[in-house]
């Protein structure tokens, strides 16, 4: 199993309709600071590389960077924190968005049923709450709608604490998009979009991790 970098994962998924924020891949601190002034502060900076799967656990995500100084300092630290095992690394700079609703979406491979698409309530309690719905890929729009209906806490999709209701069709497009990615790219074994935030009613994936079966190794 091989993991793709966050940037490569997003590049693979975006053409299939998975919504991401506009973000920049920066080779060094200067490029990062330029990206920050382009995108407007505050921003998020993350270390990006093929072998980096659990960024949060390693402290490789810096949130709420309010100005060029903060961003420059964070980008420098991130690049220094890279280890030789991480391989080639860059810094991803993205606008900082906030949301009071988090979902998790993804794909995994079941030994009996094959590729499955998942929608769940996200956040730090996601695994404890385990409010998820699953369908076998490929899924239709109708399957995606029924996945949304099946969530126990589907009230989260309505107007919520002053935020507008979730654009259901956009969430359907995201789920069907995940299904179409694995149809088109059978080497994909798993996809993690965690979290998918709801910003002004629109779902947006702020992180992505794609795992592939190692075709190159099998072939050689």
């Amino acid at each position, binding site marked *: 199993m091989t993991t793709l970098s966050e940037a490569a994962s997003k590049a693979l998924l975006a053409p299939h309709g998975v919504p991401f924020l506009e973000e920049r891949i920066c080779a060094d601190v200067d490029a990062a600071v330029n990206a920050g002034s382009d995108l407007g502060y505050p921003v998020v900076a993350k270390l990006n590389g093929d072998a980096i799967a659990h960024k949060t656990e390693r402290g490789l995500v810096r949130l709420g960077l309010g100005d060029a100084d903060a961003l420059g300092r964070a980008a420098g630290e991130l690049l220094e924190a890279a280890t030789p095992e991480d391989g080639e690394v860059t810094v991803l700079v993205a606008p900082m968005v906030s949301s009071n609703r988090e979902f998790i979406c993804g794909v995994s491979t079941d030994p009996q049923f094959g590729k499955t698409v*998942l929608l769940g309530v996200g956040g730090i309690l996601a695994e404890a709450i385990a409010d998820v719905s699953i*369908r076998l890929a490929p899924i239709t729009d109708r399957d995606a709608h029924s996945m949304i209906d099946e969530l126990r806490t589907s009230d989260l999709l309505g107007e919520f604490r002053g935020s507008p209701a979730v654009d259901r069709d956009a969430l359907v497009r995201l789920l069907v998009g995940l299904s179409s990615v694995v149809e088109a790219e059978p080497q994909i074994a798993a996809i993690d979009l965690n979290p998918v935030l709801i910003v002004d009613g629109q779902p947006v994936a702020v992180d992505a991790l794609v795992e592939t079966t190692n075709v190159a190794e099998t072939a050689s």
Partner: protein
Amino acid sequence: MSTHSTAHFNALFNPRGIVVAGASTHPGKFGFVSLHNILASGYAGKVFATNRDGSEVLGVQCATAIDDLPEGEIDLVFVCTPASTNIELLRQCGRKGIKAAFLTSAGYAEAGEEGIAAQAELVAVADELGILLAGPNGQGVVSTPANLCAQIVAPFPPAGRIGVASQSGNFVSSFLNWSRQTGVGISRAVSAGNAASVTVPDFLDYYATDQETAVGLAYVEGIADGRDFYERMRAITPSMPLVVVKGGATAGGARAAASHTGSLASDDRVFDGAMRQAGVIRSLTVEEGFEAAASFATQPLPKGNRVVVVTTAGGWGVVTADAIHSSELELVTLPDDLLAAIDEKLPPRWSRNNPVDMAGGETRDTIPEVMEIIANHESVDAIVYLGLGIQSNQARMLREGRFYPDHGLERIVEFHERQDRRYATAAADISEATGKPILTATELGTADPNNPGPAAVRETGRLCYGSANRAVTALEQMWRYQRYMSG
């Protein structure tokens, strides 16, 4: 040549004649019990039997070999002989033109390496001979249209429209016991045993084309190819509702996974999602599975999810409303014209709300009249009716007390019992006339099955639900299927 054609399944479920191979004179042996159950349940075709010494069993003169039986009269062999003799037995059956074999014999794939090889040979020989092979290691087959009870266990259920297929023989018995208790009948039932050749999905495929069967009820565990099972179920649900109870739901839940998605996608959740996607109703318990199947078999499907609760007492209605609120059903707000129509029939103390609580304001004809008004309203898709049997419950006490039949008790007892029977019949008649489900729920169905209310529900062929919650669950499952079919 395919051994799974409709003609082969007909030979299993509607045979012209049967032979029990390995008939025994010992009343404790399968070879006795199966012959007994066939003879005792009114099977009208010819019944033959074989055993080693050619003795007589239950009045049937046994032959010592299938070869000695007449030609062209037997479609099904029910096998109780040891595994080691069964290949030769099948070859003799092939020569007789027998098209289906049900094997109770053990010693096959459930019994290690040698058994696996023996089972493979059995399948190969059956295929070569063109014989449908059910089992081995199964408990039997039931087919009420043929009065056929070819099984080594009880019971023989009443006739009806539920088709049972199970990976576990004892689950067949469980479902059939529920059938006997509730009166909601069975069309076919079969235990797939080791499912060496014919699997649970194969039986369900046959049920989907079977005129006698309206709904499939299956028990499965340890599915080898989940994707295939999903595809098979999805192909069946457009022509027949399917209820599946699955064992081993919580096994292997945790899986090492790099992704959060992977760790959330436990085996059971994947199975659950796959069944929803296939339009299958998954039930977690035997009784819930049976009640869902019984509902599909005896009630019209709801066109929508708007429910009215009709009750003769407040508390029951409140609890039922709670159950509806936590389901995908809607406790519909009564429209003004419906309120006004009910006002005509009840004194002003009725709830004027849903649940429709008559609050004891009903007279002789009120319950059927109110039920009919509600069922006929366009904004109502289904009714849950509570309170049946109360009058007969008091009647029983009056009848059993020392004052009966004096003081006018004989007359009032008769009135109460007649009323409850009338309510039960009205619920079924109005449901049929309007094409809307009306589910009658009372614990008296189990607490006092002879109460004329629940007894009359059974006579209509419908299920008397043991509680309002169980009725709501069944109704929700029917609604899910309807939504799947129309979506």
